[in-house]
């Protein structure tokens, strides 16, 4: 049974992020987009970072249509000067950062290790993990001032392995320990750091992953059968968890992994 999850726009939401500023990477689609919309619906001003200006502007327009404030910054999250500049532009636009959602990610080439190139390995590690280092590094002085929060996107594949996902798993496992170490570092500043571990979620990334199989729909069916709840997550379901971790309701939660995977990692 597919549950209808209430969409963030147009529904009266508790405004847990009124006057807060959130920076979301990977905001042009999927989990990043859903989270940006959700945080905006709860009162936050959004800085959306991604590569695709058209998609990025579309997200910004949706937020503005619901009376929110948002800005899109095109950036390759692997590049230090672009990350530094993106954070600087956020501050120029909104004066503060309260929530950093390190969400940009790529699934990688979906090849066995012997077929992978060095460039393919580097791309996955740089997009998925190095970008978190860079954004956290530049955002932290501002998060310290605001006693803000960081939420990182790991994956169920940061806890369990998957064939043809060596780089992705390494990066997502890295996200978990990066989160725990950074949580310790940031605790004296009262900045909380947590991560979400989504399972199979209905996003462009997962569609790309399924397209690697000769029979896409058979692959989808097989993937869903592997999930105890028997269905994929919607991006809103992940966004809901990110919003919780970023809110004051989670004030005693730091260094934690919140799995949203329909039971996949406990079977």
């Amino acid at each position, binding site marked *: *049974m597919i549950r209808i999850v209430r969409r963030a726009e147009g529904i009266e939401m*508790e405004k847990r992020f009124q006057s807060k500023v959130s920076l979301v990477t990977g905001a042009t689609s999927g989990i990043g987009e859903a989270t940006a919309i959700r945080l905006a619906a709860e009162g936050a001003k959004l800085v959306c970072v991604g590569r695709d200006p058209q998609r990025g502007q579309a997200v910004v327009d949706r937020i503005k249509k619901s009376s929110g404030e948002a800005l899109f910054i095109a950036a390759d999250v692997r590049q230090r000067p672009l990350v530094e500049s993106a954070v600087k532009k956020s501050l120029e636009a909104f004066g503060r950062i309260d929530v950093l959602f390190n969400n940009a990610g790529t699934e990688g080439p979906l090849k066995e290790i012997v077929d992978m190139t060095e460039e393919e390995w580097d791309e996955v590690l740089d997009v998925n993990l190095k970008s978190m280092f860079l954004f956290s590094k530049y955002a932290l002085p501002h998060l310290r001032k605001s006693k803000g929060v960081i939420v990182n996107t790991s994956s169920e594949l940061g806890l369990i392995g998957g064939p043809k996902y060596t780089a992705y798993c390494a990066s997502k496992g890295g996200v978990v320990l990066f989160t725990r170490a950074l949580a310790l570092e940031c*605790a004296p500043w009262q900045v909380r750091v947590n991560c979400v571990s989504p399972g199979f979620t209905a996003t462009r990334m997962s569609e790309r992953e399924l397209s690697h199989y000769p029979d896409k729909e058979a692959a989808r069916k097989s993937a869903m059968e592997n999930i*105890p709840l028997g269905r994929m997550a919607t991006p809103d379901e992940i966004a809901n968890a990110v919003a919780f971790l970023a809110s004051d*309701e989670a004030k*005693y*939660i*730091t260094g934690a992994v919140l799995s949203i995977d*329909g039971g996949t990692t*406990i079977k």
Partner: protein
Amino acid sequence: MSPNSKRLAGKVAIITGAASGQGKAAALRFAQEGARVVCFDIQSLDKIQQVVDEVRKLESDGVAVQGDVSKGSDIDKCVDSTIKRFGRIDILVNCAGIITLKPFLEQTEEDYDRVMNVNLKGPFLFTQKVIPLMLKQGRGKIINYASIDSFVGEENASPYVASKGGIKSLTNTLALEFAAKGININAIAPGQIDTPMLRQFTDGHPEVKEWMVKNTPARRIGRPEDTAEAAVFLALDETVFIHGTTLVVDGGWLCL
């Protein structure tokens, strides 16, 4: 939080261990969010009724039930009261818990049995009684209180630690058995939380409290309200895809 956001409006929750500590905080927070709350505890009916009085002050409704969470007949009494009064059970929060603090070689068989009965057998039996009703309703939520001690050891608390490992594993397995049947099952793993149970360690031993604070990255003991927030989150309709997980609420304790 907006005073109007009654995110659990229309829901009926049974909370064990509701007379004090984390159970009480959960009962009050649920009531604040619009849930009607059945407060179950082994402590005196008067004490439980005080919590229900506070529930009513929060403009919700509740019932006090006194009983032993490890006795099938007391559980039946609680479930019957709930159905009689409210007609449904949407959420079961297995929060009741006890601890016996002694070196392993001094723990008695009675200590072991008591701790296991409350901390593990109680949730096992209570969940067994409630799930058939939830299956008839087509949906329900079970929230178990595990512990940081589900992940790491704690000296001088051997039966407690064993029970907390057990409740985490029980959560995992029930999540698998009922995944496709509309029952959403998770656990919370609190760290050091300021409750009567914690004060068993710290009363008269300020150095113990200091040690706890020092070893908590967040540099404070948790408040019962901190874990109550996590219980509300897991109780929401929106969180059904979070399933079989144990959400750690410990101020970073497990990171060290």
